[in-house]
């Protein structure tokens, strides 16, 4: 157990403890690697959290910008199934570590590159689920919509899209999980996120690692709940509650 009091506390224990982790989060500690510089503390935690959120939101926005219109278009037209579903399958096979490492070693570090790499992971689930979600709308409902005089765009916007929201959101949440997970190892690419606590044990110590793990988990869950809430808000009352 760490000795009490504020100020700088030397990291001695090699095994993490919950108490130690909490201490790490809230008060700066002395690192025994880089010779006594302070690590941890709320300020640093907030800084890294913001970094991770920033890069996550950017990547998600980019993924949505690319994948959502494409999925809606192909889904409505009924073409491009091979692409939409195939990309989803392929995307799952991409090892995030290899992606990040490759990016860092070959293309270059930085937020921009990282965002693009993360978007590569975020696009497939959104594209596939948007496509499938639109296709799965009851054909009779679409026929009726067209038959009473909606233009193709109106059919998509007023009927197909609202009815596909649960499936689409499932894809968005999946993309977010991928992106947050990969953003966690972003420090390998020079962008300091909460994952830094986890990856650099030598600097942050065992408590830091545990603290990092807890914080990352909490962040991921917070995002998931927010998205779930947003989904509930956007889903029409007339539809059954989504189980996914």
């Amino acid at each position, binding site marked *: 157990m760490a000795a009490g009091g504020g100020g700088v506390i030397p990291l001695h224990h090699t*095994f*993490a*403890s919950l108490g130690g982790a909490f201490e790490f989060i809230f008060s700066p500690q002395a690192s025994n690697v880089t010779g006594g510089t302070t690590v941890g503390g709320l300020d640093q935690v907030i800084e890294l959290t913001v970094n991770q959120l920033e890069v996550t939101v950017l990547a998600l926005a980019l993924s949505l910008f690319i994948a959502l219109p494409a999925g809606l278009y192909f889904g409505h037209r009924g073409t491009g199934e091979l692409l939409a*579903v195939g990309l*989803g*399958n392929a995307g*799952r*096979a*991409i*090892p*995030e*570590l*290899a*992606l990040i*490492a*490759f990016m*860092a*070693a*070959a293309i270059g*570090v930085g937020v921009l590159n990282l965002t693009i790499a993360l978007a590569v992971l975020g696009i497939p689930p959104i594209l596939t689920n948007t496509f*499938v979600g639109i296709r799965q709308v009851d054909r009779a409902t679409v026929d009726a919509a067209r038959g009473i005089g909606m233009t193709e765009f109106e059919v998509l916007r007023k009927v197909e899209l609202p009815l596909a929201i649960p499936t689409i959101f499932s894809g968005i949440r999946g993309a977010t*999980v991928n992106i*947050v*997970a990969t953003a*966690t*190892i972003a*420090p*390998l690419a*020079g962008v*300091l996120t909460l*994952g*830094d606590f*986890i*990856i*650099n044990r*030598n*600097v942050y110590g065992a408590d830091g*690692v*545990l603290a*990092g*793990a*807890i914080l*990352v*988990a909490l962040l*991921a*869950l917070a995002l*998931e709940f927010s998205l779930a809430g947003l989904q509930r808000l956007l889903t029409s009352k007339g539809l059954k509650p989504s*189980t*996914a």
Partner: protein
Amino acid sequence: MTSAMLAAVGEVGEGFIQERTSDTLPCQATDKLFCFDWARENIGRYEEPTIQHLELVVISVLLGFAVAFALALLAHRRTWLRPPLLAGTGILYTIPSVAFFFLLEPFTGRSSETAIIALSVYTLQIIYRNTMVGLANVPASVKDAARGIGQTDRQILWKVELPLATPEIIAGLRIATVSTVALATLATFVNGGGLGEQIFRGGNIDFTTSIIIAGGIAILIALVFDVLLLGLQRLVTPWRRAVAA
């Protein structure tokens, strides 16, 4: 930090380049994206990690499948279990694996065990959900007919419901397996072995040729599993041709 170290390594490498002029430069030190020569010579060193990787994947998926399948069978009859199980597996899925590794670490240490547990937990949601969906999609009329000819609930489950749910279940297995192959690269963070160690080891990112090879093998393994499982799905359910993943 890491970026500082990266820069340091880069400098040393450059120093190397300035001093040496022969073309027996180690591939690691050059800027080349992919050194075919080096790849050909050193491909052997990926054998062990690949085997480790396969072990990680197979064990994790089997373990995850066993647990998820059992949970699904439990929840099949007891509908009150469904929301908590769905939520529970969902939460486990949401937590990034790297974080999960180190949440487990105080208990299981830095080993492949930790990696396997985390990886199998990650598969739970997909397999559980797909199994539940597969069972739910069995037409009520078929179950009704089975009941009508006198089958017990147990017989209906094993002889009617599960066979009809198989495409969905295998689809879930496919997704889980492919995801796990990709995710298992992260096992390097807990000294779990696998191809990830050829990408990132002990604080250092390896050079691009190695990254490409390791990553490429991982993707290849994923593809092979996907095709194999797709074949299995077609084999086991000849009455249905294609199911969306």
